[in-house]
């Protein structure tokens, strides 16, 4: 994902001399192609995220489009007030890019797990929030935010995530179909969409009709799309590598809150306290511990269906 991001940004910068990239001394083996091609528009600010966000606002308020890049919580939580006041209050054209979504940094430990960032960034006024599931969506989202003129947050994983649908989305602001199916509808944000596809295949083998959508745009959230899909479904499921509060589940539940016929929504995400792990583990191990393995997701859905039919 991160290599797709920098390749996409390099394409954009080749055609748009106003695009700058700042990093907080992170991005080794990722950002070098951009730095080599556009040295006058690339700055390693140093390990100083507040300064990076403020500088980005100052450059953007001078008519530029500025991407800032770092790991997990560093370009978001560490400089949150700069993003609120300097960037969002002024509508400055700054794009925050965080690599290492959710448990992507696995055994590096809790400080490197980004589990609340989507909720917190979504609270900022006027910002758009993207959590792509695969390299195809990363490319589409990078192109979209580079041209949007708005503050944006792009949350990407690390490297090696598979392409889940080779057809580029027409509009990355809308949920993207990954698997046809109407009765049980799964919404995923981020690379967990791959686990959702596996879970859906497993459920289908047991005779279930399961659809899967990737919701890469968390803000603005496409409430109408969710409502339209819900009309033909008997169960909705959200899956996210993030706490439930303020993320995909909250947005789906809110979209459906006013509907006359409300079907159950199963929210599958990182438990708030469970996320505070002090045990080393790969992403896969941590996902399993959080109830986000393919088996756990499948089991949660089966249990919800059993409860529903009881």
């Amino acid at each position, binding site marked *: 994902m991160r290599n797709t991001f920098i390749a996409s940004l390099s394409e954009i910068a080749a055609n748009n001399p106003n695009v700058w990239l700042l990093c907080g001394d992170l991005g080794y083996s990722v950002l070098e192609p951009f730095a080599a091609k556009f040295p*006058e*528009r690339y*700055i390693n*600010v*140093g390990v*100083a995220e*507040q*300064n*990076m*966000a*403020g*500088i*980005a*606002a*100052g*450059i*953007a*308020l*001078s*008519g*530029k489009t*500025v991407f800032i890049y770092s790991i997990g919580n560093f370009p978001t939580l560490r400089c949150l*007030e*700069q993003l609120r*006041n*300097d960037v969002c*209050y*002024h509508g400055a054209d700054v794009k925050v890019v965080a690599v290492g979504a959710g448990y992507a940094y696995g055994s590096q430990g809790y400080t490197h797990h980004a589990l609340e960032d989507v909720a917190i960034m979504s609270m900022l006024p006027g910002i758009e929030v993207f959590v792509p599931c695969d390299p195809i969506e990363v490319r589409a989202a990078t192109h979209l935010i580079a041209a949007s003129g708005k503050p944006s947050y792009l949350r990407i994983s690390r490297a090696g995530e598979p392409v889940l649908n080779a057809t580029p989305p027409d509009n990355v602001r809308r949920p993207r179909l990954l698997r046809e199916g109407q009765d049980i509808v799964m919404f995923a944000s981020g690379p967990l969409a791959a686990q959702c596809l596996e879970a859906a295949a497993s459920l289908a083998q047991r005779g279930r009709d399961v659809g899967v959508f990737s919701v890469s745009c968390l803000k603005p959230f496409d409430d109408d799309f969710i409502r339209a899909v819900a009309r033909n479904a008997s169960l909705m499921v959200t899956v996210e590598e993030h706490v439930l509060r303020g993320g995909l589940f909250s947005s789906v539940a809110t979209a459906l809150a006013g509907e006359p016929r409300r079907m159950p929504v199963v929210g599958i995400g990182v438990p708030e306290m469970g996320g505070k792990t002090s045990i080393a583990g790969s992403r896969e191990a941590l996902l399993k511990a959080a109830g986000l393995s393919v088996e756990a997701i499948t089991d949660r859905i089966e249990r919800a269906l059993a409860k529903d039919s009881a």
Partner: protein
Amino acid sequence: MTRSNLPDAVEFARRIRAHALRMVHAAKASHIGGCLSMADILAVLYTRILRVDPADWRQPSRDRFVLSKGHATAILYAALAERGFFPVDDLKTYCCDGSIFTGHVSHAVPGVEVSTGSLGHGLPIAIGMALAARSAGAGSRAFCLLSDGECDEGSNWEGILFAPHHKLDNLVAIVDFNKIQSFGTVAEVLNLDPFAEKWRAFGWHVQEIDGHDIAALDQALSEVPAMPGRPTAIIAHTVKGKGVSFMENKLEWHYRSPSDEQLVAALAEIGA
């Protein structure tokens, strides 16, 4: 506007002090002490230094001014009004319901580059503006006015470290060093000394001047860059509440608003 027909800085400072006193009195607002300490700095900037056209102030090649000590906003609004960005009469709406003139600096006000209020934000923004200006090659400069108290903020020191490394000689940081911060003197709360030496050690070209000496301010602010390849820091030694004897060097005037009688006495002292 040529320099010869710009307003006189001394008279400009006197007028903006009077406006700020009236504004803070009418709004029952705070922060008059920090407004009065920076009056002469603003007067020199807006009468002699800043290349900005009030009639068309968003020209890309303009100089940028960022007031990082955003609580001292009354006197900035007063300076912008006196300089012709909007009618002086608008100042009467300061802090009133529905007014754009909020109690911390607002970019809704013509001539204001950025909203501030939370301390430690202005310098990094000004650095970004200086970088963009250098890239554009139009010769514009970025000036940032900080309080002494906000030099407690780590974000400022991130910026202070960054600017010399990147040889930003079109950047000027001015510290309104009035020695009193929110809850005590700077010496008591978190001592900055040796202050100028810290900036020098970080690689800035530093000038220490009397922040109420118009000629000294003019000379220091006119020499940009004073040293090619280095940003300029001007440590302006000032007096909190300057110009009103009963406000000078008194912590309470970070908070208090003058009574009717005190306003009359204050205006008389500054000759308004």
